[in-house]
Structure formats: structure tokens, C-alpha cells
């Protein structure tokens, strides 16, 4: 095999590894789940929700978020897609006015990261 050919093969192999597997982007969203988990702690989501993998997240106000990544509906209203989840997280009062979940002022990035973390809760 020529040297160029070998290099090409290696490059292809590396490229295909980056495209999938646990180190790649989370399916369906552009957020970073690890950052999202930190943000969940910072925003005190766990004061109102039980959230697996987050310390002291034992809230009894809103629904528990176990298996969130497999749930079909957000707030019983929106199909559980990453974009809908970001919309809900950023502005729950616009979607269900008067519900107990406040608009906490998340940036798009923060909401995407949190959505990515919630998606890992299978």
C-alpha cells in the first residue's frame, strides 16, 4: 500500500470514530450533557424535581425527571424533542402561564446543555 493510501485510511478511520460513539455529539441536540448537569445544580432544578445523578435533587414540587429522555411529553403538552425542551426550559411561563415553574433566565446555551443532560436520563 502506498504511503498516501495508508494516511488516507487512517484519516478516514479517525473521522468515522469522531462521528459516532460516546465521544460524539449527543443524538438530537447540540448541548453538552456534563455542562448541563452542572447547570442543573447551579439553577437548583433539584429543589423542585427529583433528578437522577444530581446531588440533593429531591424536590417534591414538580414531576420527577427520571427517564426524562424516554418520556413522550414535556409538561403534558409538548412532544419531547430537544428543541421543544429548550423552549420549555427557557420560557415555561409563556407555554403554560401561571404554572409553578419560573422563567429563570436561562441562555440558549444553558438550556441546550440542560436538555442534553435530561436526554441522558433513559
Amino acid at each position: 500500500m502506498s504511503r498516501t493510501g495508508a494516511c488516507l485510511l487512517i484519516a478516514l478511520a479517525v473521522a468515522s470514530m469522531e462521528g459516532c460513539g460516546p465521544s460524539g455529539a449527543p443524538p438530537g441536540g447540540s448541548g453538552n450533557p456534563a455542562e448541563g448537569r452542572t447547570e442543573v445544580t447551579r439553577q437548583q432544578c433539584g429543589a423542585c424535581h427529583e433528578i437522577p445523578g444530581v446531588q440533593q435533587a429531591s424536590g417534591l414540587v414538580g414531576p420527577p425527571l427520571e427517564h426524562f429522555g424516554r418520556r413522550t411529553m414535556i409538561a403534558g403538552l409538548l412532544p419531547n424533542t430537544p428543541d421543544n425542551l429548550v423552549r420549555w426550559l427557557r420560557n415555561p411561563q409563556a407555554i403554560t402561564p401561571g404554572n409553578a415553574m419560573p422563567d429563570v433566565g436561562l441562555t440558549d446555551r444553558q438550556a441546550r446543555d440542560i436538555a442534553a443532560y435530561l436526554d441522558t436520563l433513559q
Partner: protein
Amino acid sequence: MNLSPRLRWVALGFGAAMVVIALGALGVIEGGVYNATAIQPHDPLSGWATHTTMTRYFQRHALGVAAPARFSATQITAGLRDYQASCVECHGGPAVARARWTSGITPSPPYLLDASRHWSSSELFLIIKEGVKMTAMPAWGLSRSDAQIWDLVAFLEAAPDLAPSAYARMAVAPQPSRPTSRSSAPPS
């Protein structure tokens, strides 16, 4: 002392391990290695250790605090007023967000809508009165009477039954005139 050679080695090893652990701990403290900033939440071990220390302290010491069997509507309203004035910025309310900067506090101050499902009235009283070290929670007992603190507890006890709309209504309702002594005020 007459130790068998084997036991002596075990004791020596144990002592050496203790010294190494102590030196390691000193190294962490003096070396500036531990992340003391508010940027990163506690690691699981520190989070567990500090939170459990705090929880057990208040559980234990609240045993000596006698709580009223029930609270009056006047107390709840007074507590809500005080909560609005002094607590909501860090702890939020039903459909009310905390101030945005509070997510930069570590540990981050919790929403308290279900605080009374996790803590007894006596525990809440002590937490508010004495504050929590190494969090941003002040000892409100330095600026408030016990009766005023019980008003806050009254509000927290009522909070789980308070719809966001009811909270919003009570929060904007005109403030009832209330003298500084509060035990004599009849329930409204």
C-alpha cells in the same frame, strides 16, 4: 510491650499510613489545590459531607425547639411579606425566579416551595434564625425577633398549598397595618 514481630510491622504500617494521609491533607490545604471558587459545584464527596453535616446539626438541635401546633392566617401573611422583602431574591417563589446572580452562589440557594416537606417547623426556625455557615444563608436571628421568624416558618408551612396565582395575589395585596408585637393580632 511485647508485640509479636508481625504485629509490630502492622502497627508500624498503620502509623506510617496515618502520617502519609495527614501530610496529604496538609498538602491539599496548603498547596492551594482544592477548588475553593464558586464556579464549580461541590464534588460529590464534599457535597455529601457538608450537606449531611448541616442536615444532622439542625435535626439534632431542633429537638429542643418547641414549634406552635398551627399557624394563623395573620402569621402566614406576615411571613409572606417578609419573605417577599428578604428571601425571594435568593430562594424564589411559586412561578417566581430567584435573582439571576444567585445561580453563582455555591452551594446554590434552593427554592423553598417544598421546604416543609423536608424539614420540620422547628428545623426551619433554627435554620432561619441561626443561618448556615459556608453558604450565603445569614443568621436572621441577629435582625429579627423569634416571632418574626415563626411568621416566616408559617409561610413556608403554607407554601406547598399555595397556587402561584394565590401567591401573586397575596404578594401584591396592600400591606395590613401591623404593630411590632404580633402575638396579639387576631387571624384575618
